[in-house]
């Protein structure tokens, strides 16, 4: 997968132009390069080469903040198969802040984040994992003495777009399950003036995350989404309609009890609680961990973790649909699926329109000097 930076990313405006616009002279820039060489221990004589490298090729800035969460989404992303996380972080993006991976701590880490947000204002991609506890003035999560809400708002201010990664950032997930003691909410409950895409799942599949980043960097916009802000390329299909066990369902071949004869023939898990008929997810197509397998493939029913509210609407997990919390007893599998599909499609149009408006505003705000006749938005980078 290619990660050529989009034309409207920093490379569109040459770094020299950008420096000039920011009031930095060539001489000051060279001094900066010299000092950087000294810091890096490569000697001042390398300064011209470093300057050339900086001017030639900038990796898009990504800032990743982690709020009220379990770090499972980070663990998922570092299992991404293509590109590998090493390739992504070293060669394709500039991961300018990451709680889990960055070398510096405390003030040094926070100042690195602040510097990146200032330098890349309006251009960086913000990734958020974790929910935001709003109850009791936000005291249930502080970092550096500041609340999660304040940290998110500050980081979102200069972001070109936001990826709400995982169920917690999407809608609050497990800590937002009834009765949601800390008042946990997702990113889009707090941030209303920036485009937000929800990568659903607890956690999401790594390859969906990297594909979304790739989409943003390659095409200069977030992918089209459904009514819940989830990218259609991953969440546009219901598990039940993509499931390799669908033939068993249609033939009435069900696992009645775990490890029974049906289980040992790999039959359909609907009777032991599978939520595939009510879940839009890339699991059957993308599969997990370098396409090794997926939950239903390994004999466990789907728990519906890509759907908002699943801890309440999909439980008990071993209860057969529709006899679970979120669905009326009159629902039948296909009616259920059809209703969800219609809802999703209708939502796409509305959300896509809103996102486009956000993006147009963003481009105007953040890139006033781009000349559309000489490589504006949409022009591929050489």
């Amino acid at each position: 997968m290619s990660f050529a930076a989009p034309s409207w990313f920093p490379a569109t405006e040459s770094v020299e132009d950008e420096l000039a616009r920011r009031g930095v002279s060539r001489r000051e820039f060279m001094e900066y390069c010299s000092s950087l060489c000294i810091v890096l221990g490569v000697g001042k004589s390398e300064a011209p080469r470093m300057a050339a490298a900086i001017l030639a090729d900038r990796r898009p800035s990504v800032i990743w903040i982690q709020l009220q969460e379990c770090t499972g989404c980070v663990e998922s992303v570092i299992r991404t198969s293509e590109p590998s996380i090493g390739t992504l972080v070293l060669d394709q993006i500039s991961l300018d802040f990451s709680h889990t991976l960055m070398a510096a701590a405390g003030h040094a880490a926070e100042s690195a984040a602040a510097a990146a947000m200032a330098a890349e204002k309006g251009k960086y991609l913000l990734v958020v994992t974790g929910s935001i506890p709003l109850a009791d003035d936000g005291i249930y999560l502080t970092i550096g003495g500041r609340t999660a809400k304040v940290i998110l708002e500050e980081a979102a201010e200069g972001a070109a777009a936001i990826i709400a990664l995982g169920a917690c950032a999407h809608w609050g997930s497990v800590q937002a399950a009834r009765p949601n003691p800390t008042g946990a909410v997702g990113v889009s409950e707090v941030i209303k003036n920036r485009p937000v895409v929800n990568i659903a799942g607890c956690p999401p599949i790594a390859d969906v995350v990297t594909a979304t980043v790739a989409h943003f960097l390659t095409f200069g916009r977030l992918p089209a989404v459904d009514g819940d802000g989830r990218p259609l390329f991953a969440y546009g299909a219901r598990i039940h309609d993509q499931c390799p066990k669908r033939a068993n369902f249609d033939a009435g071949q069900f696992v009645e009890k775990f490890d029974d004869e049906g289980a040992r023939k790999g039959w359909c898990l609907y009777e032991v609680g599978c939520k595939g008929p009510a879940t839009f997810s890339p699991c059957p197509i993308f599969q997990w961990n370098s396409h090794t397998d997926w939950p239903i493939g390994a004999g466990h029913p789907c728990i519906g973790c890509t759907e908002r509210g699943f801890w309440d609407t999909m439980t008990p997990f071993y209860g057969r649909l529709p006899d679970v919390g979120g669905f009326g007893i009159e629902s039948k599998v296909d009616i259920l699926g059809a209703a969800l599909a219609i809802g999703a499609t209708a939502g796409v149009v509305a959300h896509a329109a809103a996102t486009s408006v956000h993006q147009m505003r963003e481009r105007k705000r953040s890139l006033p000097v781009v000349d559309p006749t000489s490589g504006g938005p949409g022009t591929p980078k050489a």
Partner: protein
Amino acid sequence: MAATKVVVDPITRIEGHLRIEAQAENGRISNAWASSTQFRGIEIIMQGRDPRDAWAFVQRICGVCTVVHAVASCRAVEDALGITIPPNANLIRNLVHGMQFIQDHVIHFYHLHALDWVDVVSALKADPAGTSRLARSISPWPNNSETYFKAVQDRLKKFVSGGQLGIFTNGYWGHPAYKLPPEANLMAVAHYLEALDWQRDVIRLHTIFGGKNPHPNFLVGGMACAINLEDTGTINAERLVDVQAMIRRARDFVEQVYYPDLMAIAGFYKDWAAIGGGTKNFLCVGEFPEAGVNDFGKLYFPRGVILNGDLSTVHEYDHKLVKEYITSSWYEYPGGDDVGLHPYEGETKAKYTGPPAPWEYLQGLDKYTWMKAPRYDGKPMQVGPLGRMLVAYASGHDDAQGIVNEALGRLGVGPAALFSTLGRTAARGLETVLIARRMETWFNSLIERVKSGDTKTFAGEKWEPSTWPASCEGYGYLDAPRGALGHWVQIKDGKISRYQCVVPSTWNCSPRDKQGQMGPYEAALVDNHPLVNPEQPIEILRTIHSFDPCMACGVHVLDAQGNVVTEVKVQ
């Protein structure tokens, strides 16, 4: 000279949100406070739920140790309902948990801890031929040529030459505390990158048995992955061969990369074998049942308690001696804040008394954390790999004695060196070697059982709630990568009435108790501990990271009105 106030928040390269405050004088740390600044409140959510669903909820306590809470929960519910899981299911859980340990410890070493000891920038100056000689001298690992290390170095040069340092921005490069020669730094950077690819491969064992990672699926009563050698959609020979190959690759990497790197790096930092020891009481609840889950004599890692660093006696563990204190925590007890309560009597009422955010300092305040202070017979306890290795070593465990003595011999230090920051980091590597070797035993046992015709993975006799007693309770123990864990569940009329956890990072990150005894993080930071430059607190990171903090915890339960109903403190 007056003490300098030091704050490190966020502590990066850990799971979750941890704040360390300290005071430094003349290059030494004179006082320290550990504060957990996140509270999630998962537990009230457990109330009224189907106990068979519990594993999935509590699994989300932590996505790093993504196996441990799920398995502890299954064990607790199975204990309550009187379910004995089939031997195949126990072996599969051991394989899944074992791979969790191996993968988690390797990631901790290279990606969370290494940058405390390895100067990435120095690697730019290395002679790749020298790195190649070094690598060949310590390991048969095939990626050891000059060409290979040159390619890694070129990649790193290209990375930094763009001026965008990404995750390495503002690192403490060039700090005098870094002691490795450039060639060793380059070797470590190469293995940092290799480990990223390796972990992605070997963790697929979870995907085969549990469908995905993170957060693989489990099942009360056994495992959901049916075994049938004659089917395409079950655990069959193709899957088992893949598992066997992963176990082999995991062991190769641990024996040929992690362990040699650990020993090589430790050799340059032997002074850290006299720094950061702190609490000398250790607790291990035991792990990897090789017979019944309650056959405590047949746990691969034995359970026990060591007091005052005395390896001549291993005390029997009795959970009734566990009490929790809130003298320094944002809670209140009806009987007063200095009372200690056993978890079965746990009273938790949140009472936040910290300053309104944003704030500058917590030091000097009586209460400064969401973490309670568990104590064993009134004493703070260290839990984790070092405790596990010490209990095994002192119990006469052949494998543990063998590897510990070998490592001490290679480094030329005595057993006293174990009680230190370096000791904690080394013990994690040593137990990884033991587990990586033991995986083959569990795998072979599984194969032998299947060969003999036993493919059972699930005990379904007590699956239906109609078979359950009106009320019951159960305890699930588990020694997790970060230490001793316990889940307690009470079930009434088919629903969870109470759910409680006591978790490794609560033991280690506990604050001061009523007697003023510090928790293990705090005690370690004031034990012969340097801090050369408070602006670059690399020494603090070394010691805190040596515990491998996992902070998505401290989660005591509130209801909507702010009254705590039950509690969980989570790893």
